[in-house]
């Protein structure tokens, strides 16, 4: 039974109790507790069910390596599933729930899986569930899906504050243990910026507890002076509660700041760090030995047992057995023994050890058995006894020892994940039994330089003496390599050189375990990967470590195999009869620790999800009931419904107001790109398919741009402002693309041309005044004469409306008399209001993008993106006239000569009139001939003007089909017949644009 001691606990404040709920029970912990320590203090040992067999599981560690104790924590919009209880600080009224069981943790229906585990070996699902075929979808898969998964997803929307922070630093030190602190001290005062990230809420790492316990005055002094140095050094920035999760190219680092101490706003930040050099001081993680029944609640990593004791004053049990293969873990039993806890036996897999720490343990009267290990564990939902066996046998039990806790230690695994993220290689250390950073194959930075240095336990250096000895030296070497002038750093070693603590690389005990025992040995707790699963993978030829991982799911759980990878690799090597270093290891990938998806999105959620660009007339549009349509990043008014109008009625009204009276369109989003210079004409001749250099100042010309493949890419009206200056209008969605396109050609291909390009899209707003009464409306402002003589079609003038400067283009996208007024954007709203006011007596109506589309479709004008889809040439659109034959060169010209672009089978733009004039063809429906699709509808509307359905379409060899009737298939049951005509339904003679 686990419990809390009356005193002790460096992390907790006993004066402040914290109430929390665990599966509906009200429990108490202390301020500073983690959820795990508080649960242990309340004797909650059994806290989870495993993934596959739903076996009872307990808290196994005290940190991020925790494979078992995953919980759902929080409530409502702060509920989070799958959280490691070992990492979360306990908060007042916190709600903690266990997961992956039904109906309850104690009585879980699916624990029945455990009984059938012999049939559920690795990959069994690849071998069955295949008959009958439909059963996979309707029976087997739904069954598997329901059983799998861990926690439940939140139901409510997330209210957390997430944000991203950029930071640049010369040196990033990852980990604030002894190595990290020493590195920071050694690097200071050299003119470098240094950042130190520590995942814990305090600096010090493992040696912090060492210097707090006992009479280690020298340690305390060192720690105190180090803290002072870190505090006062301007060049060192320390971030606590910040875990580095990924290393990317060119020194880009992601770190997750999870400040759990905040009051109201618990902020979570993703730090995007650029570091020139990275010092890895991430320490090591203890790994377990693999033995039969090793997954029962009550079994915990040895150092974690000690951590709970020292940090939280929590005991895993009062009768604890240690099973180990190394000297380090003796610390745990010594600490426990000092507090009067019963240690019936220590089982050491080694033949002997003469390390002083072992002697110390012996001196305390602890019974130590060398060459022994655990052969079985008794207990149903928690440990009640162990059976001792010899390491070399098949596991015959020699002695049964009652106990209620087991500390296990299989040695330490350097925490090398981050070393591998960006190209660092690892080498196998056969003596210690772990992978460590290969100093010959380091991660590299932008210039190909070594940009990471591993120090301390993550590099396989474990003794405090060695760390304090080596770190300054390595930092000095680094400094000289980085050519940082300044002094060498020297630190007196306060630690004494001790006899080396040793681990013998044993992994699975007993060595000759019978099949029956092997079936109860768990390697990966969370995914329930057993020793026998890995053996099966090897037997079936999944020999490559990646194959074995994927076949058995070893190391693929949320702990990413932090405690299981090395054991798994060992088992694989044994099964294949190959040395471990020939097996290799799977690739470590970011993130080191799982990070919330909301954090990755950062502040860019909800309102900030994506920028919405608003026109200067947006406010008016929004006050006047506009429905919005996103066009690239813009929001444009789609239509302006009035009262109880249906959308159809609105569009009708808007279209007819342009045809009969006058309408106003906010077309501010049109791209406006200024092209200026002595070579501007030449340049535009290369860009557009038609001639632009011949355009006379004061006139407008419609132009089309193609890409090199010969396909239409954008279109718009080009205006020649003066000899040297053109203003090119583009589509709304295409402005940025066209601007980039022009710059690209100018800078990278035709840089000899003297031309400048300025994107003035937002300097000017544009208002279209369209309809037979447009001229009358504008002439109510006395200052302007807009007669056809003064301002002919495709000309422009600059003038004032009242005192507002405007440039008026006589262009028409509706076929009606129409003026487009360019105005400085700051005055656009004012001008719009004037036009609305002046237009009242002409029954002026604002119209939106949909009415605009109907109006242009009635005229057969194309819209890039509707009539074109990136595969359409000007010729396909019936616009041969816009492709200059005179020009030597322009973008797309070569492609027009390619065989396929001249094929007779190309689709050509036509008008389509349904025989039943009320029948509007569905969007995108296809024309069929002999059961084959021969084209499709590109735009289709009910024309309010013509009171009939109209459509444009691209039909194979369409122009030669004019006059014929085609079948359009709109659904599998129904066909519509329509006549192919010229794509110009309204005023084909073009008389209306003069009013």
């Amino acid at each position, binding site marked *: 039974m686990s419990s809390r001691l009356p005193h002790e606990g460096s992390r907790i404040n006993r004066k402040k109790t914290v109430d929390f709920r665990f599966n509906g029970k009200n429990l108490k912990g202390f301020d500073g507790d983690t959820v795990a320590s508080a649960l242990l203090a309340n004797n909650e040992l059994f806290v989870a069910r495993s993934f596959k067999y739903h076996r009872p599981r307990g808290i196994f560690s005290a940190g991020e390596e925790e494979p078992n104790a995953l919980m759902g924590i929080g409530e409502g919009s702060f509920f989070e599933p799958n959280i490691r209880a070992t990492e979360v600080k306990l908060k007042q009224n916190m709600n903690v729930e266990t997961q992956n069981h039904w109906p309850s943790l104690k009585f879980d229906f699916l624990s029945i899986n455990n009984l059938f585990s012999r049939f559920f070996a690795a990959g069994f699902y690849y071998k069955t569930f295949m008959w009958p075929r439909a059963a996979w979808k309707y029976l087997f898969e739904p069954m598997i899906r329901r059983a799998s998964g861990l926690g439940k997803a939140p139901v409510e929307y997330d209210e957390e*504050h997430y*944000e*991203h*922070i*950029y*930071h*640049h*630093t010369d040196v990033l030190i990852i980990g604030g243990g002894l190595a990290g602190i020493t590195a920071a001290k050694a690097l200071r005062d050299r003119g470098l*910026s240094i950042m130190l990230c520590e995942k814990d809420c305090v*600096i010090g790492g493992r040696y912090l507890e060492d210097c707090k316990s006992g009479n280690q005055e020298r340690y305390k002094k060192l720690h105190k002076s180090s*803290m002072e140095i*870190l*505090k006062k050094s301007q060049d060192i*920035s*320390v*971030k*606590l509660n910040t875990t580095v999760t990924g290393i990317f190219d060119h020194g880009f680092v992601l770190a997750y700041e999870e400040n759990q101490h*905040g*009051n*109201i*706003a618990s*902020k979570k930040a993703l730090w*995007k760090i*650029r570091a020139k050099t990275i010092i890895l001081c991430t320490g090591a993680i203890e790994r377990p030995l693999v033995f039969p029944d090793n997954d029962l609640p009550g079994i915990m990593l040895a150092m974690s047992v000690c951590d709970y004791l020292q940090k939280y004053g929590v005991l895993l049990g009062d009768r604890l057995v240690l099973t180990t293969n190394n000297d380090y873990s003796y610390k745990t039993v010594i600490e426990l023994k000092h507090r009067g806890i019963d240690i019936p036996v220590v089982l050491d897999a080694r033949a002997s050890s003469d390390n002083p720490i072992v002697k110390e343990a012996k001196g305390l009267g602890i019974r130590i058995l060398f060459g022994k290990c655990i052969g079985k564990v008794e207990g149903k939902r928690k440990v009640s006894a162990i059976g001792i066996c010899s390491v070399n046998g098949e596991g015959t039990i020699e002695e049964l020892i009652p106990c209620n806790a087991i500390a296990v230690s299989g040695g330490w695994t350097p925490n090398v994940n981050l070393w591998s993220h960006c190209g660092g290689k690892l080498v196998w250390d056969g003596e210690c039994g772990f992978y460590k950073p290969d100093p010959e194959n380091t991660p590299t930075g932008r210039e190909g330089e070594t940009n990471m240095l591993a120090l301390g336990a993550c590099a396989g250096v474990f003794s405090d003496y060695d760390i304090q000895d080596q770190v300054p030296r390595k930092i000095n070497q680094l400094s000289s390599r980085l050519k940082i002038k300044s002094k060498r750093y020297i630190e007196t070693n306060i630690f004494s050189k001790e006899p080396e603590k040793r681990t013998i690389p044993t992994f699975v005990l007993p060595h000759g375990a019978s099949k029956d025992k092997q079936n109860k040995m768990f390697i990966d707790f969370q995914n329930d990967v057993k020793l026998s699963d890995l053996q099966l993978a090897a037997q079936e030829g999944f020999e490559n470590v990646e194959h074995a991982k994927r076949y058995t799911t070893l190391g693929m759980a949320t702990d990413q195999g932090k405690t299981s990878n090395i054991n798994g690799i060992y088992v694989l090597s044994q099964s294949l009869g190959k040395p471990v270093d020939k097996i290799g290891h799977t690739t470590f990938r970011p993130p080191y620790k799982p990070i919330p998806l909301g954090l990755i999105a950062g*502040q*860019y959620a909800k*309102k*900030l999800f*994506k*920028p*919405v*660009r*608003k*026109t*200067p007339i947006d406010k008016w549009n929004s006050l006047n009931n506009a429905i919005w349509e996103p066009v690239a*990043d*813009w929001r444009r008014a789609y239509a302006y419904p009035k009262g109880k109008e249906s959308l159809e009625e609105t569009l009708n009204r808007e279209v007819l107001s342009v045809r009969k009276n006058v309408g106003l369109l906010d077309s501010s989003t049109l791209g406006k790109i*200024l092209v*200026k*210079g*002595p070579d501007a004409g030449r340049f535009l001749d290369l860009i557009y398919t038609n001639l632009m250099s011949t355009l006379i100042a004061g006139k407008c010309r419609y132009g089309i741009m193609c890409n090199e493949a010969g396909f239409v890419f954008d279109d718009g009206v080009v205006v020649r402002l003066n000899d*040297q*200056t053109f203003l090119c209008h583009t589509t709304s969605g295409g402005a940025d693309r066209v601007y980039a396109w022009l710059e690209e050609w100018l800078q990278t291909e035709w840089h000899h041309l*003297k031309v*400048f390009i*300025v994107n*003035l*899209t*937002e*300097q*000017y707003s544009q208002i279209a005044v369209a309809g037979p009464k447009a001229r009358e409306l504008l002439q109510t402002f006395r200052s302007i004469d807009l007669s056809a003589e003064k301002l002919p079609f495709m000309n422009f003038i600059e003038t004032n409306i009242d005192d507002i400067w405007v440039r008026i283009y006589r262009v028409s996208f509706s076929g009606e008399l129409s003026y487009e007024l360019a105005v*400085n*954007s*700051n005055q656009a709203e004012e001008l719009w209001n004037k036009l609305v006011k002046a237009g009242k007596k002409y029954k002026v109506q604002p119209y939106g993008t949909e009415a605009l589309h109907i109006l242009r479709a009635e005229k057969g004008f194309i819209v890039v993106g509707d009539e074109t889809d990136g595969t359409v040439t000007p010729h396909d659109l019936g616009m041969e006239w816009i492709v200059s034959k005179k020009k030597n060169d322009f973008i797309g010209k070569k492609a027009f000569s390619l065989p396929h672009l001249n094929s007779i089978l190309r689709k050509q733009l036509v008008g389509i009139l349904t025989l039943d004039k009320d029948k509007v063809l569905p969007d995108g429906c296809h024309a069929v001939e002999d059961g084959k699709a021969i084209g499709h509808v590109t735009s289709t509307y009910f024309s309010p003007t013509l009171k009939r359905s109209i459509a444009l379409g691209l039909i194979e060899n369409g122009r030669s089909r004019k006059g014929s009737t085609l079948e359009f298939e709109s659904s599998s049951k129904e066909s519509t017949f329509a006549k192919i005509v010229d794509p110009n339904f309204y005023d084909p003679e073009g008389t209306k644009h003069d009013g």
Partner: protein
Amino acid sequence: MMDRIRGDIFVDIYVIGSISSLNIRVYQEDKKSLNVIQRKIGIKLPSVQKAIEKNKLTLCWISNDEYLLLSEKKENEGLLNQFQKQMNLTTGVAEYTTDLRSWFLIKGNRAMDILRKGVPLDLGKLEIAERNFFRTRLGEIQINILIKSLDEILVSVLRSHKDYMIDWFEACSKRGTEINFDL
């Protein structure tokens, strides 16, 4: 009158709106255009990523052939007009871009912090001197940053992004989300 962004925030952010400005394009070897700039504006071209201020006129470096001229004084309007006309007689360009951008002023000793939440540049104190001008991105949008001093920063975005920018500032300047280091 400038609107201040309201709310419990850790810097002062003012919505300025428009500042009179011209985008200037000029070839470094074009003596004639350079002459016009020198004669009319009286400011020599700033070096890379710098801005030079004189008489409430600030000339900012955008690229080796592009500059931004800001005028924070009404009296300069006539001068700007003349300059624009003369400049456009050369092969250079001077176009009004007053209406194109929306400006904000960030004030306070944490002014730089707020930008660090969206700008991928190194805005560490050692690197950033006064009168620096940067064009870069903030989140998803392009931004111009004129560092008047460490606690006074002028930024601009496209006018269509104004509301988005305000929302961004509100979200990123909440008190309690200051960028702090521990120890």
